[in-house]
């Protein structure tokens, strides 16, 4: 169990979102990897799910504010961009640096039409949540079963 603490320090190295993404690939096809030179795009953890009448995208963006994230939706393509700086606070010197700068561009191909005007996004506790309600014709419909 000691090796829990000897991680490389890349955050989320053991977290599952990549597996999750693979698992959900039939729902959200990610067609573009982050365009980041130092590979830190992998550090962005994203989870996607189909919540019935809504698609939900979550991304870990600790330390980032609303203004640090840009979300665009064009047709069935969702693009999320963001950046965070991790500067040494003024007056301090660094003894250990593990938190990486984040600069990412992630694109998702939505599997169904969404109501563009009803898309909501917000950051809470360092987690970005984007809710994309499916267009009316895509929503699951309940068929009532009549007694014979």
């Amino acid at each position, binding site marked *: *169990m*000691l090796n*829990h*603490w000897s*991680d490389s*320090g*890349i*955050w*989320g*190295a*053991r*977290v*599952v*979102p990549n*597996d*999750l993404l693979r*698992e959900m690939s039939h729902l959200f096809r990610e067609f573009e990897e982050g365009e980041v030179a130092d590979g830190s795009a992998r550090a962005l*953890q994203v*989870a996607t799910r189909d919540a019935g009448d809504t698609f939900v995208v*979550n991304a*870990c*963006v*600790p*330390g*980032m*504010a609303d203004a640090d994230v840009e979300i665009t939706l064009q047709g069935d393509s969702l693009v999320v961009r963001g950046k965070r700086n*991790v500067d*040494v*606070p003024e*007056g*301090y*010197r*660094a*003894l*250990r*640096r*593990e*938190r*990486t700068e984040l600069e990412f561009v992630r694109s998702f191909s939505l599997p169904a039409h969404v109501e563009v005007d009803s898309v909501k996004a917000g*950051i*809470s*506790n*360092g*987690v970005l*949540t984007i809710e994309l309600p499916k267009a009316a014709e895509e929503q699951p419909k309940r068929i009532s079963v009549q007694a014979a």
Partner: protein
Amino acid sequence: MSQGIQESMNNVSHSVQDAVQVAAPTDVFEREDEYLLVADFPGVSADSLHVEVREHDLALEGRAGPASNSGPSGSSVVYARRFRIPATVDRGQIKAELSSGVLRVHMGKAETARPRRIPVGRAPVVARSIGGE
């Protein structure tokens, strides 16, 4: 002393059954009067974040909410970390704050451990009389 705060190799006391455990990435900074530890805990609210001093260690542990970044099969994520606190830290002066998924722990150094500036007095009057004439 350059490694002011060492990572403790002791394991977190209780293992986590239904969650993926992740080492929270952490920065450590030093100033004359304190150490500042900054760690990412995305999806963790203040209620579910535990910051404890246990003997010589600072233990950090927080569970991310199920809706935010859960793993497959619904398991949640537990961020944890444990650091050895230098003897120079005044245990009564450890303060923690959580904002936007980032934890900041300020650890004040004991008075005796801070660098002390010794005031340099002006030269005595005698010196002036020597230089003057």
